[in-house]
């Protein structure tokens, strides 16, 4: 996708990191002669790309599926105004939620915003389609949605690309046209019929789009498919007839009708929602769709084959499927966890301890005195956000109570407080997420006299997606130095008076600061600062365990550090994983001083 866009003459590329879309901008940032940026969030990224398009050049904006929710406002606006230079919006869906909070099907956005959508089914098509996407955008005066999924984005397949492409980029020039660009109601009203007309014209155009492909094989079954699902279908149904669509909105209806008339029965194979199926059914064509292919989760050749055999679309295999006759053995799972030396670990550990008491004992009688006592003992509620620190929800940390979407933690905490919940409430948000969409919520707390405590976990990078820069790092997408946003200055500027900056590896200070801040009657911010160990890769002096001191309380295992293991009932430290006394959280939680810094 990145190379395709580069060869298609893109001039400006913007993005906010998000799995599985991050690598697109990372790769564009290695290419010469174009402008790239990590934008503060997807909405900003969309607006910057739209501005570039208004300026006459080709622009690309990429994000993960939920990023388009953030960017939906300018995306819909772009559909109304149209473009000058080609504008391609890449969204990468995540069926199966490998690294996401939902598995929304972003094809609906195309229909919703009345823009065309293109879907590649492998790397070659992704490359080829990019040039078409820009052309289509310019010819039809529309942004073009370009949909990838995890199995397109995180797959590598062979692609032939242009050699030392003769790249032509458009000259920037803004031509004033308020009727097109200034969307006051009187200007916007005449644009709507143009949008409807545009979809009609695109529909005809898609009929002859050369990358849609009809393959007539066995006529007893005709499969309509797109994206990664098409490859699975080819794998599973060896001889069937196929209609591969790369233009999944608006659909080439005549082409579909022609295909349907060539085959005895039509099967629609698509991941997630019945998007194609619904439109094709409305056309009056009978299809087998979601009764065959699950609506939930990521599709795979495995699932497709099993379903097709059960539905009688494929013959029973000669030998019994191996998986059915086996006794299922319960193997221990390996959930992701915070890395050894993670600057979020101490805060998570502290929050777990402070939050512990809100699991109320069931056997207590509710006398008035007891209720009072219980209220006093109520633990802290922790609203959390999107980032590595969300992993603290897993055992043994179990530190978090909510996580919804980027930037939600601060608003949620404020809402809990205003609802009258009497627990102390703390919101936890990362540096990149705070700058993405936490700032406005904090303004809201200050303005509306909230008392909330916001912990900003500042590891000076966007860690979860692989260490991208953000405004707080002072490093640009190309790795150059730039103006750094100082988070403590920013929150003071908003009007927070109680601003604390603490070392991420100082557990007693973190705990004491949280305890103090939640008792005050004003908003407070605790910036917990420490670098991501995977980025800085520096180790301190190694830690060792003095087993004679250890009384086997195993409190150190509650930290959830992968470098601490238990062999029988002996605690050991894996020095290859441990970052040494740069962290020393285990040393701080041990009441017997069994962990020691080795001076060797």
């Amino acid at each position, binding site marked *: 996708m990145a190379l395709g866009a580069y060869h298609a003459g893109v001039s400006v590329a913007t993005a906010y990191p998000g799995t599985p879309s991050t690598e697109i901008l990372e790769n564009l940032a290695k290419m010469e002669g174009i402008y790239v940026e990590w934008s503060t969030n997807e909405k900003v990224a969309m607006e910057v790309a739209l501005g570039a398009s208004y300026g006459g050049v080709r622009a690309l904006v990429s994000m993960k599926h939920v990023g388009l929710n953030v960017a939906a406002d300018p995306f819909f606006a772009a559909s109304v105004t149209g473009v000058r230079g080609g504008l391609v919006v890449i969204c990468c869906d995540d069926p199966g939620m*490998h*690294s996401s909070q939902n598995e929304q099907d972003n094809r609906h956005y195309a229909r919703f915003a009345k823009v065309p959508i293109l879907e590649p089914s*492998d790397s070659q098509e992704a490359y080829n389609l990019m040039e078409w996407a820009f052309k289509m955008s310019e010819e039809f005066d529309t942004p073009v949605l370009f949909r990838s999924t995890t*199995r397109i984005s*995180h*797959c*590598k*397949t*062979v692609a032939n690309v242009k050699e030392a492409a003769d790249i032509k980029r458009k000259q920037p020039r803004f031509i004033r046209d308020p009727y097109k660009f200034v969307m006051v109601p009187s200007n916007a009203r005449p644009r709507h019929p143009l949008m409807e007309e545009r979809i009609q014209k695109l529909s005809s155009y898609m009929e002859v789009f050369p990358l849609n492909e009809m393959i007539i094989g066995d006529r007893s079954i005709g499969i309509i498919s797109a994206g*990664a699902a098409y*490859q*699975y279908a*080819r*794998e599973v149904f060896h001889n069937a007839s196929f209609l591969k669509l790369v233009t999944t909105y608006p659909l080439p209806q005549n082409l579909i009708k022609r295909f349907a008339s060539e085959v005895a029965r039509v099967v629609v194979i698509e991941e997630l929602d019945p998007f194609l199926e619904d439109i094709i059914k409305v056309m009056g064509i009978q299809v087998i769709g979601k009764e065959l292919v699950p609506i939930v989760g990521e599709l*795979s*050749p*495995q699932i497709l*084959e099993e379903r097709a055999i059960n539905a009688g679309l494929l013959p029973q295999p000669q030998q019994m*499927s*191996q*998986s059915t006759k*086996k006794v299922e*053995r*319960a*193997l*221990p*799972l*390996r*959930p*992701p*966890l915070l*890395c050894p030396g993670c600057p979020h670990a101490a805060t998570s550990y502290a929050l777990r301890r402070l939050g512990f008491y809100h699991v109320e004992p069931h056997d207590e009688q509710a006398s008035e005195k007891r209720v009072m006592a219980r209220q006093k003992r109520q633990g802290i509620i922790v609203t959390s956000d999107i980032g590595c620190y969300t*992993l603290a929800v897993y*055992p*043994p940390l179990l530190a978090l109570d909510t996580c919804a979407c980027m930037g939600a933690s601060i608003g949620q905490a404020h809402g809990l407080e205003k609802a009258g919940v009497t627990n102390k409430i703390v919101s936890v948000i990362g540096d990149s997420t705070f700058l993405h969409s936490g700032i406005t919520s904090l303004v809201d707390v200050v303005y509306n006299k909230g008392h909330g405590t916001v912990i900003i976990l500042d590891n000076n990078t966007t*860690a*979860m997606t*692989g260490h991208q820069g953000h405004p707080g790092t002072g490093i640009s997408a190309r790795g150059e130095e730039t103006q750094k946003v100082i988070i403590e200055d920013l929150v003071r500027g908003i009007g927070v008076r109680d601003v604390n900056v603490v070392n991420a590896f100082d557990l007693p200070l973190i705990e004491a600061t949280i305890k103090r801040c939640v008792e005050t009657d004003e908003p407070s911010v605790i910036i917990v600062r420490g670098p991501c160990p*995977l980025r800085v890769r520096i180790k301190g002096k190694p830690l060792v365990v003095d087993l004679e001191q250890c009384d086997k309380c195993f409190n150190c*295992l509650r930290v*959830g550090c*992968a470098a*601490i*293991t*238990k062999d029988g009932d002996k605690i050991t430290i894996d020095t*290859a994983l441990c970052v040494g006394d740069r962290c020393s959280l285990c040393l701080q939680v041990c009441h017997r001083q069994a962990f020691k810094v080795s001076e060797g």
Partner: protein
Amino acid sequence: MTKTDVLMTGVGGQGVILASDALAETALKAGYDVKKSDSLGMSQRGGSVVSHLRMGEHIFSPMIKKGDVDFLLAFERLEGARWADYLRRGGIAIINNLAIPPLSVVGGTSTYPSTVEVEEIIREYTDEIYFIPATEIAVELGNPQVLNVLLVGFLSLFLDIEEKSYIGDLSQRVPPKFLQLNLKAFARGREEALIRKQNRQH
């Protein structure tokens, strides 16, 4: 050109993805159509990692179906057992005999399967199982990080790709100062495979 499906599994940080990238590139240069797909989950380190790698005349799906895997290359024992049901009958399992216990095991809520148990699980699918002390060999060679190259070296003996193609790819991929070590690891892995294969035939 035989169709070959390889499933590489391990724990984040072990170099699974790099190994599958290197093998994919080598196969591509040897004239195969290649598709690969990685699942990383959320963590950079410590979670389960699996990489599907398919090569042949013409490949459609980048993901392998259960019961189709020709070679299961496990960088860690538990992750070998976890994906054993992907093996085809008579496929080859190459397991680094290393245990990285997940936190649930360390915390005592679950138990880690022994080598014998893992072997039992895999034996339900195939008898051709190689347990190798690859991490120990890598440490002997001077750097546990060369585990991935060593395992690819082991696998390479079973594949229909010339040895010099791997060496060519490594020479381009690895920074000069680590090249000798990596070439040594590759050769050592391949040699180990040769010895094991011969022993098996006796």
